[in-house]
Structures are given as structure tokens and as C-alpha cells.
């Protein structure tokens, strides 16, 4: 590679984000033609990643990156092997087509600029996710895909359904992301590495760790929510509220595969344990069957496809869980095939919707003449999805059956699941590809005709690729399938299946699948009615549960808020001081840290005793004040007594300040109090008074004990000595207190002055607001 390859890769990773920032401006300038320019970003990234193909096919890995926070062992680093490169190519390649498609699909929409920005930002996040080497980077990109997905699903934010779907997707996948973060922290703690590339050879230690199961469950929570595995599947069909390019890109080809990517990435490290081999096929299998059953029920083209996506993800998780060489090969082939045909079919569904005005399969028919190119693309994609010979989907299905078919009961069970699932997916594929186009012409809301080139280019390219990849399977396997399967199993695997059928159990199972699928397609209406009845009898699903969860969350947080914030100042203050009393009193009693009984000071002078007494008298007088004058005067008395106490104990500066402040306080208080009312009695009932008094006495006692105990200890003169030594010699002043204030702690004093100024401004504002309103209301009258 060229010497500047890391910089180029870095640039390629950020190109989508750059395009995302430019998208709104370009769209404003060029309208829908901006898509042609914006598509250059993923296209260039695609071309860049293609240059790695020979190197990766030769079995090498490419790593690179930049130090981020070396002290925490964090880096922005990427890691390209067969697995991440295949994903990167799918993301950028399909991404290019999607950007073009969006240009046609969103043409004339006022939010097209935002839409382009969101989808390109998502592309950058997804690309970053699959090439990330560092855990932290992986997590950041993982959550970024959730956030961009939220923006895209909620794009049509004026509809409540779209808002709900967006929130749901964010809560489910974001919550899973947090679990993943915890899982990654576990991985880091167990193995001590923060990079995926270093993790590969630490699998044995990880599998023997006592925290293995916890780590696995956390990682699975992340992967299963992202990849819409049962019972977290419900957000995916709801995400079809998004515009169709989003469904085609995020919710079939890329984002939902992030979970599968993670499982494949961790397969060499965490796989091949009882938990892995049981959990993954189990949940994958359920998801496969549930997805196909739910798909058959639907009549909306996009929803049918969404549920089969869920089923396909289940199949992929199931195969990854098996982890054998054949299963991994099958997963690889199926993943690539699925991205191609599902992306194409989604775009077809979008085109039909765009041109005919509906995507309800029962209201569509006979569009073949009006939309021949779209029909052709749909047919090719459906043939691949149905797994018929000559198509990449066929290779995948052969490999699936080769991997699953074995004599033991477990294998028979999962083979059965796969056959039923594939047969139903066959039926749905042809329902989507044939029903809108064949049969008698049905009047549609819009007069249907072929869409512009941007609308049919994507489906055509993807569906033809599905055919080409199978015809030239040698090339596809050498550059894509074999390196990817090798990366997932961490051993050299050469995929060699071709589209020439050879006799054996897999072919037999394929034939059964196709026959069953044709039967299901033929009786689709009956099957649909049956499924609707069957699913209704099951009652509400997790989708309804989400609503309950959200409304209960609101109610719970309302109850908690009312409990801790009842809106009464008295309760807040009481709670604060009770806590203060507990903090002060419990530790001394608990740890036996009570001070010794204090002795009466022998050397107490008469004037000291007198001012102590005056302070206490002033204090009591404030407490018992029944009118304004008493309150003001007694507050002044205790303040001046404190000032004199400062003076008696060697603090003249304090004393003068205190005198001044107390005088000012009394004057201001007297001015304001003439306009305020002081109820003669404290209007607390006796019980309340007693309780408050207890709290107050407890706090006071706490402070007394604290101070007694702390003055018992020898005094640490470190700071005092410092100021004593340097006041004269360095700061050239004899008044040490002044030196501290204006010199050593000058910034602190600046802060103090700022506080005084802000307070002054606030006081002024409070008074002026009143004056302003008076003037305003005066004019009104």
C-alpha cells in the first residue's frame, strides 16, 4: 500500500460526515441533483476500500489509526479483515445507490436536505462501527447509529406513529448499546486489551473467566436489540415509518446487521461454549419462525419485507451460533445475498409506492407494463431471495442446509426451522415481486409509470449483482466470502460452492423448500387469514408492552417526583437539616469519637463572659421577637457582640468589617421591614415547634461536638507558617490578613467582589422589574 494509506482511510471514514454537513447547502443550491454530487462521498470510500481487496484476500489484515488518549490506552484505530472489509464495501456500495435513490425518492420534499444529511451521517457512523478496532470507538459509533436511526425514523415527525417508532427504536437499541458498553468494559477487564484486533487470541482466558456468562449476556443484549431478535424485534417493523430509502438501507442492509457483525466478530473469542451454542441458535430460530409467520400476515409491501428481514437476521444469528465452518460460510453467503436482494426489494417497494401511490399488496396489480424495469429488478431479487439456482441466494441456501443437515435430533429440529422459514420467505419474496406487477390491472391512487433512472438504478444494480456474484462465484468467494469466513472463524477457510447444483441432502432440502414456498405462495390469501386469526388469539405482543412500559415510566417518575419534591420549602429544608444532624451526630457515636467533657475555662475574663452573655441574649431575643423592632434590634445586638468577641480575640480587621456589615444590615433591614409584616407569633403549632427545635438542637449539638473534637487535636500550623514566613519577606506587608486577602488569595477576593456585584445587580433588577411593570400597567389603564 502507499505510504499515505492511513491518512486516506481516515479521510474515507470521515467523508460521509463531511458530505452530511454539506448536504443541506448543496440541496438548497441544486435541489434533488445534489444527490449526484453527494453520492460521490460513499462512492469514493467504496473505491478506497476496494483497493484493500487483494491484500485481504491474501489473508492479511490492515490496521491503522492515531493515538487518542495514550495515557488511557485509547486510540482512534481501525482494523480491516475479511469481515469488516465486506461490511465496509456493503455499506459504501449500497450507500452510494441509496443516496442516488433518495435523490429521486425525496425529490421536491422540503426536508430533502436534512434527510440527505441524516442518511450520510448514518453512513459514516455505520462505516466507523464496522472498521473500529478500539472498543470505545466501536461503542461511540454503535450509539451514533442508534441516534441517526432515531432521526431518520422520526423524519416525518409530524405524525405520531413516526415519533413513536423513532423513540421505540432509540430506547430499544440505545438501551442495548448501554448493555454492550458494560459488556465491553467486562471484556477489557478480563483480557486487559481495548482493541478487537488484540482480542482474537485471548479467547481461551475469556471463556474460562467466571465473568464469561455475564459478559456474553451483556454483549448479546446489545447485539439482539440492534439486530431485532425476538423478543426485541418489535421496533424493526415499526421503523418502517421511515421513508423507504431508510428502510432499504438501515433496516435491511446495514444497521440491523450491526448486531450480527458484532456476534461474528466475537465468534472466535467468545464462541464455541455451551451458552453460545444454545442461546444464539435458540433466539435466532425463534426470530426466524416468528418473523416469517408475521411477514405472511402483512399486506403492506414494506412490512412484509421488514418481517422477513427480522427472520433473516434470526437465521444469521442461528448460523453464527452453530459456529461450524459450514455454518459460518452459510452465514457469510446469506448475509451478502440478503443485503443485495433485500436492499433491491425495499427500493422496489418504495418505487411502487412512489409511482402508484400505495404499497398495499391487495390494492396493486398489473404494473408490469407500466414499470418494466422495476419489475425486472424485483423478479431478479425475488429469485435470489427465494434461493433459486443461478442466484447468490441459492448458494447461501445450499450452504445453510449443508451446515445444518446432520443426523442428530438438534440438527433435524433446526433444519426443520430453516426449511419452514425459507419456504415462507420464498412465498413473501414472490408476493412482493409478482403481485404488484402481474395479474389484471388495478386502478391505483396515482397513475403509475416507470420512475426516473435514480429510482430504478439501485434495484437493478443490486439484483444483477445477486446474479453475477453467483455466476462468477469464484471471484466472489476469493475476495469476499472466503476472507470473511476466515475472519469469523479465525482459521483459513476457502468457500468453493458454485451455482452448479450437485445432488445430495442440501439439494433435496432446497427442492422441498421451493415446493413448500410455491404452495404457500399459491394459498397466500388463506395463509394470511389463518395467521391473522392465530396471532390475534395470542393476544398483545411486546409492541403493546412498550406502550405500557412508557406510560408506567411516566407515572412512576411522576410519583417519585411528587414524593421527593412535594413543592413545600419547609419539607426540603427539614430534610436537609435532618440529614445534616445525622451526618454530624452518627459518626462520633458510632465510632466512639466523642470529645472529652470540656472543662470550664479558668482564665475567662469578665469582659469576655459579658459579651458571650450579650450574644446569647441577642440570639434568644431574635428567636422570641414578636415585632419588627425587637427583631431588628436583637439581630443587631448579637451581631455587635460577635464583632466585639472578634476584637477580644485578636482579630481587629474582622471586628471592623463585622461592625460595618452589621450596621448596614440593621439599616437596610429597618428600611425594608417597615414594608414587611412580621407575625407576632411563630405560627408553628406546638408539635411542629418541638420537632423543629429538636432538629435545630441536634444540629447545634453536632457542631459543638465536631468543634470540641477537632480543637482537641494538635493544630497543624503548616499553612499559618507559610503565610507567616512569606508575608513580609515576599509580599512586603506587615498585616498578614491583608496580604492573604489581596495577594496570596487575590483571585478568591476577585470572586468575592464579583459575587457582591452580581448580588447588587440582582437586587437592582428585582426592584426595577417592579417599577417597569407599574409603568406598563399604568399605560394600559
Amino acid at each position, binding site marked *: 500500500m502507499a505510504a499515505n494509506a492511513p491518512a486516506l482511510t481516515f479521510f474515507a471514514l470521515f467523508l460521509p460526515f463531511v458530505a452530511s454537513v454539506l448536504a443541506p447547502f448543496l440541496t438548497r443550491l441544486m435541489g434533488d441533483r445534489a444527490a449526484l454530487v453527494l453520492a460521490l462521498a460513499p462512492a469514493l470510500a467504496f473505491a478506497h476500500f476496494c483497493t484493500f481487496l487483494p491484500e485481504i484476500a491474501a489473508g492479511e489484515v490492515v490496521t491503522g489509526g492515531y493515538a487518542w488518549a495514550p495515557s488511557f490506552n485509547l486510540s482512534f484505530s481501525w482494523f480491516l479483515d475479511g469481515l469488516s472489509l465486506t461490511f465496509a464495501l456493503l455499506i459504501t456500495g449500497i450507500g452510494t445507490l441509496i443516496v442516488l435513490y433518495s435523490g429521486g425518492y425525496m425529490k421536491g420534499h422540503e426536508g430533502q436536505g436534512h434527510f440527505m444529511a441524516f442518511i450520510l451521517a448514518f453512513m459514516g457512523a455505520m462505516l466507523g462501527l464496522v472498521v473500529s478496532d478500539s472498543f470505545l470507538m466501536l461503542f461511540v459509533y454503535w450509539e451514533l447509529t442508534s441516534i441517526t436511526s432515531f432521526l431518520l425514523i422520526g423524519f416525518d415527525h409530524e405524525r*405520531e406513529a413516526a415519533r413513536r417508532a423513532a423513540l421505540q427504536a432509540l430506547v430499544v437499541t440505545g438501551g442495548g448499546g448501554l448493555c454492550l458498553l458494560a459488556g465491553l468494559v467486562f471484556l477489557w477487564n478480563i483480557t486487559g486489551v481495548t482493541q478487537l484486533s488484540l482480542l482474537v487470541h485471548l479467547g481461551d482466558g475469556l471463556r474460562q473467566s467466571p465473568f464469561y456468562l455475564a459478559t456474553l449476556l451483556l454483549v448479546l443484549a446489545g447485539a439482539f436489540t440492534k439486530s431485532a431478535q425476538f423478543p426485541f424485534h418489535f421496533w424493526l417493523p415499526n421503523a418502517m415509518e421511515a421513508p423507504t430509502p431508510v428502510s432499504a438501507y438501515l433496516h435491511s442492509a446495514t444497521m440491523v446487521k450491526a448486531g450480527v457483525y458484532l456476534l461474528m466478530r466475537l465468534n472466535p473469542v467468545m464462541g464455541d461454549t455451551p451458552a453460545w451454542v444454545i442461546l444464539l441458535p435458540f433466539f435466532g430460530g425463534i426470530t426466524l419462525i416468528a418473523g416469517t409467520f408475521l411477514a405472511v400476515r402483512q399486506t403492506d409491501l414494506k412490512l412484509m419485507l421488514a418481517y422477513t428481514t427480522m427472520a433473516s437476521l434470526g437465521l444469521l444469528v442461528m448460523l453464527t451460533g452453530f459456529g461450524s465452518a459450514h455454518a459460518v460460510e452459510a452465514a457469510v453467503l446469506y448475509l451478502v445475498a440478503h443485503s443485495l436482494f433485500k436492499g433491491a426489494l425495499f427500493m422496489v417497494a418504495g418505487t411502487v409506492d412512489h409511482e402508484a401511490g400505495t404499497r398495499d399488496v391487495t390494492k396493486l396489480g398489473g404494473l408490469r407494463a407500466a414499470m418494466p424495469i422495476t419489475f425486472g429488478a424485483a423478479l431478479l431479487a425475488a429469485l435470489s431471495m427465494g434461493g433459486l439456482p443461478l442466484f447468490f441466494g441459492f448458494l447461501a441456501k445450499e450452504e445453510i442446509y449443508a451446515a445444518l443437515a446432520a443426523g442428530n435430533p438438534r440438527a433435524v429440529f433446526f433444519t426443520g426451522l430453516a426449511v419452514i422459514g425459507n419456504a415462507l420467505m420464498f412465498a413473501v419474496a414472490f408476493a412482493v415481486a409478482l403481485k404488484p406487477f402481474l395479474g389484471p390491472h388495478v386502478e391505483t391512487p396515482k397513475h403509475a409509470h416507470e420512475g426516473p433512472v435514480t429510482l430504478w438504478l439501485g434495484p437493478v444494480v443490486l439484483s444483477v449483482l445477486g446474479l453475477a456474484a453467483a455466476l462468477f462465484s469464484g471471484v466472489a468467494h476469493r475476495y469476499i466470502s472466503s476472507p470473511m469466513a476466515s475472519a469469523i472463524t479465525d482459521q483459513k477457510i476457502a468457500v468453493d460452492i458454485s451455482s452448479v447444483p450437485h445432488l445430495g441432502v442440501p439439494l433435496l432440502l432446497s427442492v422441498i423448500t421451493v415446493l413448500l414456498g410455491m404452495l404457500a405462495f399459491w394459498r397466500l390469501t388463506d395463509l394470511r387469514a389463518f395467521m391473522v386469526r392465530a396471532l390475534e388469539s395470542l393476544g398483545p405482543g411486546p409492541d403493546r408492552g412498550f406502550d405500557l412500559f412508557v406510560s408506567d415510566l411516566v*407515572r412512576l417518575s*411522576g410519583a417519585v417526583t411528587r414524593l421527593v419534591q412535594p*413543592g*413545600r*420549602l419547609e419539607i426540603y429544608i427539614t430534610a436537609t437539616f435532618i440529614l445534616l444532624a445525622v451526618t454530624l451526630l452518627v459518626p462520633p457515636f458510632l465510632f466512639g469519637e466523642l470529645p472529652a467533657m*470540656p472543662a*470550664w475555662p479558668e482564665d*475567662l475574663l469578665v469582659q469576655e463572659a459579658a459579651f*458571650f452573655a450579650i450574644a446569647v441574649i441577642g440570639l434568644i431575643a*431574635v*428567636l422570641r*421577637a414578636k415585632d419588627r423592632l425587637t*427583631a431588628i434590634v436583637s*439581630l443587631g445586638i*448579637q451581631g455587635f457582640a*460577635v464583632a466585639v468577641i*472578634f476584637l*477580644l*480575640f*485578636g*482579630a481587629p*480587621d*474582622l471586628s471592623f*468589617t*463585622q461592625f460595618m456589615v452589621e450596621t448596614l*444590615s440593621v439599616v*437596610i433591614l429597618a428600611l*425594608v421591614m417597615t*414594608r*414587611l*409584616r412580621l407575625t407576632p407569633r*411563630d405560627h*408553628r403549632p406546638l408539635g411542629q415547634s418541638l420537632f423543629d*427545635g429538636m*432538629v*435545630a*438542637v441536634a*444540629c447545634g*449539638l453536632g*457542631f*459543638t461536638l465536631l*468543634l470540641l473534637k*477537632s*480543637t482537641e487535636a494538635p493544630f497543624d500550623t503548616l499553612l*499559618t507558617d507559610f*503565610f*507567616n514566613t512569606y*508575608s*513580609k519577606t515576599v509580599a512586603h506587608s*506587615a*498585616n*498578614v*490578613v491583608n496580604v*492573604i486577602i489581596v495577594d496570596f488569595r487575590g483571585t478568591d477576593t476577585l470572586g468575592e467582589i464579583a*459575587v*457582591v456585584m452580581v*448580588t447588587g445587580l440582582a*437586587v437592582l433588577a*428585582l426592584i426595577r422589574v417592579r417599577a417597569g411593570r407599574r409603568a406598563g400597567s399604568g399605560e394600559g389603564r
Partner: protein
Amino acid sequence: MEALFSILIGLFFAGAIYLILSKSTVRILLGVALLGNAVNLLLFTAGRLTREVPPIIPVGMDVLSPGAANPLPQALILTAIVISFSFFAFLLVLTYRAYQELGTDDTDEMRLAEPRNEQLPPMGY
């Protein structure tokens, strides 16, 4: 001597907190004023007490004479006095304005920010 101060400070804290626990904003205000003094005395005492010798370096010397008061708590308290004064002034004006606007000095009656029977946020999305 520190023991006597400790008890005095305990009394100040108790008195201040008792007033702050009241519902009447005027009494809370008086309590806050007392609390400032209590805290200042606490700081003062924690720095140990000495009689009558202020922390001023005598002419012709480079350091304080032995037995001089500890200057550090004094510097801290000097800052604290000024800040508690401005806090007091602000609270005073706030109390006055609240009384003018709301016609009450009872904190229970001041429910503008947190009204009684507050509704839950709307259900839905």
C-alpha cells in the same frame, strides 16, 4: 476557651436552624443572618484562639511575634462576612418582593413554581 466557644457556636447554629425551619420568610431571613455568624465563629475557633494579639508583624521584624492570632481563618472569615452580607441583602429584597407580589410570607402559599396537584406530562409520543 475553645470549649466555651464551641457551646456558643452550637447555640448559634441551633437558633439559626430553628428560625430557618419556620414557614415565615422573614424568620428564615433572620435565621440566615444568624447562620452566617455561626459559621464565621466556627471557622474562627477551628483556627485556635489567642487573646488580643492581632496578626500584624511588628516593625523591624520579619515574622509575627509568638502568640499572635492565626491569620488564615481571619482572612477566610473576612471573605465570608462580605459574601454572607450580600446574600443577606439579596434574600431581604427577594423576601420583600415576594411579599409584595404574592401577598404572603408563608412559604406554603408560594406554589407558583410547584403548584399543588401538578398534572402528569401528556401520555403519548
